[in-house]
């Protein structure tokens, strides 16, 4: 509380002011210091840090929200913000919510605190990533590498008199490498992000980034666009989990279902994909970018199965939707910063390994189709469930074997239909540790994962 200069008595007074306009009031104090160093043209010649500090105050009256924030945490400013947040109702109201939060064990920590970092050493490590890429690949023409790290100190207090603290580290390295060959250029983007200290900056990480940046480069230069159309698609384990996040995960978020917008809003308890498929959203993976000790409503981080053995079993809830559905909150109430009210958001979303063999088995079962090795961004329309994903790298599958490399194409489909069309799930789950950021109204750090899967019919863009 010293960091934010408030006492528990003051917190109670502010919350009581908020309760004049609703049945629930919570406070979210945050101080985040974000740092970055940028390597460009083989030099770390720019960097900086950015301080963000303030408190958001939320008043709930039923499902209605009043929200205000202050960049000053003196008592008078917070009382003003509390009064502004009561504007949604103007009189005392009601709100149902789940039980008080037990103490959570953070699934992250810092062995080597970022605050103690020698920036010259950090810059030197960043430069060594470029050296590792150039050592592996003489066609390297440019490397841009960004190292960023932040530590957020969070304090949450609510009208149940629950006081919760969290310190969230987040370190990331993003590398863009450009390669040239006979007048052609290829660009690769690789990244890693973890909730941990600067112990993440190991030789192993450097070599992993370098290896991933140059992997399959000959194939990328040779890649062409395939003939487009509907065909089976095998998706590689790991980053293909973006399919789960975009095409299915958003439709599992309870706010879209509460409002009747999601394609899954009337499917609870029903079979939505084949037996044996389990899909979950998890805040407890150690050091994962999407992990949280508590969500941004003070609810402990937890594992939430949305699909068990092919049946839809849970949505992802914040306190509002949990109250509306009469279920406990699932710890998915998240926000970008104190400037935003929390809403249901994913954390680490993945599918558990299946029992349908290996990636090679899946490829061998396809007569003519596409193997997607690397996805980039995706987008989904929640109501219709239609999604699109951009394929950075992939291959044609012909007669059960990988043949021509392909790139720069889109795959389009419908989320619920694609889920129902998953024919095989391999036993090779990988949770991808890239710098995934979800942009539903606000930006939050997430991650995703999936084992290799075979989807029987998707539309592939092409010539």
């Amino acid at each position, binding site marked *: 509380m010293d960091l934010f200069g408030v006492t528990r008595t003051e917190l109670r007074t502010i919350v009581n002011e908020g309760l004049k306009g609703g049945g629930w009031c919570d406070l979210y104090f945050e101080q985040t210091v974000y740092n970055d160093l940028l390597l460009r043209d083989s030099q770390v010649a720019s960097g900086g*840090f950015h*301080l963000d500090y303030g408190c958001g105050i939320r008043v709930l009256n039923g499902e209605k929200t009043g929200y205000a924030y202050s960049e000053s945490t003196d008592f008078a400013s917070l009382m003003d913000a509390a009064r502004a*947040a009561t504007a949604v109702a103007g009189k005392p109201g009601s709100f149902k919510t789940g039980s008080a939060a037990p103490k959570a064990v953070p699934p992250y920590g810092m062995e080597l605190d970022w605050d103690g970092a020698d920036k010259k050493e950090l*810059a030197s490590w960043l430069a060594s990533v470029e050296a590792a890429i150039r050592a592996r690949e003489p066609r390297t023409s*440019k490397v841009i590498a960004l190292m960023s790290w932040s530590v957020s100190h969070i304090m949450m207090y609510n009208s149940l008199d629950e006081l919760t603290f969290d310190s969230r580290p987040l370190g990331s390295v993003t590398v863009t490498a450009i390669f040239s060959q006979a007048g052609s250029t290829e660009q690769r983007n690789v990244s890693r992000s973890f909730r941990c200290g600067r112990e993440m900056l190991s030789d192993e990480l450097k070599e992993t980034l370098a290896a991933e940046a140059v992997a399959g480069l000959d194939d990328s230069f040779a890649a062409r666009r395939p003939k487009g159309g509907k065909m089976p698609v095998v998706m590689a384990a790991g980053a293909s989990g973006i399919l789960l996040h975009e095409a299915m995960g958003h439709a599992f978020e309870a706010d879209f279902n509460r409002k009747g917008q999601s394609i899954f809003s009337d499917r609870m308890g029903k079979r939505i994909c084949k037996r044996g498929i389990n899909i979950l959203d998890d805040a407890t993976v150690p050091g994962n970018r999407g992990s949280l000790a508590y969500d941004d409503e003070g609810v402990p981080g937890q594992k939430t199965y949305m699909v068990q053995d092919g049946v839809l079993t849970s949505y992802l809830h914040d306190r509002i939707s949990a109250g509306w559905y009469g279920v406990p909150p699932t710890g998915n109430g998240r926000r970008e910063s104190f400037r935003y009210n929390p809403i249901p958001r994913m954390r680490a979303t993945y599918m558990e390994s299946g029992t349908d063999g290996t990636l090679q088995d899946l490829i061998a079962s396809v007569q003519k189709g596409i193997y997607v090795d690397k996805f980039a961004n995706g987008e989904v329309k929640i109501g219709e469930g239609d999604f699109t994903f951009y394929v950075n790298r992939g291959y044609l599958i012909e007669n059960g074997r990988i043949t021509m490399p392909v790139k720069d194409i889109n795959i*389009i489909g419908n989320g619920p239909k694609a889920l129902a069309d998953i024919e095989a799930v391999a036993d090779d789950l990988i949770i991808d540790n890239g710098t995934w950021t979800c942009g539903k109204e606000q930006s939050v750090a997430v991650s995703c994962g999936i084992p290799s899967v075979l989807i029987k019919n998707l539309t592939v863009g*092409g010539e």
Partner: protein
Amino acid sequence: MITQEEKQLARECLDFALQAGASDARITLTKSTEDLIATLDGQVDRVTRCADRSLSIAIFAGGSFGSFSSNKIERDSLRTFINEAVATVRMLAPDPYRRLPDPERCCKDAQSGFEMQIYDEAYQHMTAGVRSKSALDAAVFGKNVQALAEGAALISEEGEYSDSEYDVYVIDTHGLECRHTETSFDYGVEVTIQDAEGNKYSDYWWTASPRLADFDPAQCGVTALKRACAQIGSEPLKSGRYNMVVSSNVASRLVSPLLNALNAYSIQQGNSFLVDSLGKQVFSDRLSILDEPWRKGESGSKLFDSEGVRTSAAPIIENGVIKRYFVNTYMSGKLGMDPTGEDAVRPLLKAFPKAGTDESGLMELCGDGILVTDFNGGNCNMATGDFSYGIAGQLFRDGKTVKPVSEMLITGNFLTLWKNLIASGDDFRSCSPKLIGSLAFSEVEFSG
């Protein structure tokens, strides 16, 4: 609004930086307020009050450079913050190309902040009651709306009204001082409908204006409903090459990659499909884009960029010839090119072959093809210009829409696409800072 005391504090921060050992510095002080009323199904669902301020400082010290920001705008904490910032900059590698812009290029006629006439005093008189009424009046849920298709039901309507005030003040150690102030009134709405078979369709519409008198959200809900209903029964068509007309509300999606490829950062890194194209005929001679940043009273107008450099009204692409890269002070040194400006402020794509052409006129001109009314995902490889985007829209024949289309992709290369430009309209939306009308292209590859 930024006060005299806050401006004085910004000036003191420049002194703090020099005292800490910086050779030069630039301060950008921003302050904004926003009130937002969100509605769900015709009722107020969320009320939000936002008030922000931030001080950013670019520091040049010992030949090195760094950028920093804080929202703790208090003298003592800022002095400590700036001392730490200068110490951090000294740990970075020197970069001879980092410098403040030449004062001769800097803006000298943005002193009051009101020069662009996009600040409306009416903002000062907005009340909670007026805001709620604006949001609720614009909602269509539960009202007798003729736009809803027969057999369809409106499942959900989420609207969001907001008004805001934004103020920015930029100074540097070479004597730069400029300010920009604007207001904005905004409304956006997304509807979800269900057809008789239980299929859901969603769509959106929005409007915005710097002046309350020109702000008219009344038709947004109806427009969103019409757009959603137009999708009922949509399906992919047979893959093949079609003429493509792109609606003005989404046409900037195809122009942004061109502007990004002209940015000197992309050029210098070799990550642009327009490297070595300055002065060359690259696109169809039907394509001309110019920047129009100085239109008083219009959304997005601005006299200076983030360096304080005066924006310029100049051609970007003229009859298919690349006339301009976007070169800021830093990239000017790196590339050995004259600086221009850091980005397009209000790009205007000129109508061809004649003014007064809209989406319907382009469909008539093309005869048959696909009208794209929305994009769904996709990407562009900036190094090659290869792109692939998901689309939704309408099949048209003899200039008239006949059937809704969805789950299709367009695939191609931007160099080819813009060589195949048939015509462009001037039906751009004035509420957008990108003045891009409807566009028509031939020989576009669609997959379904």
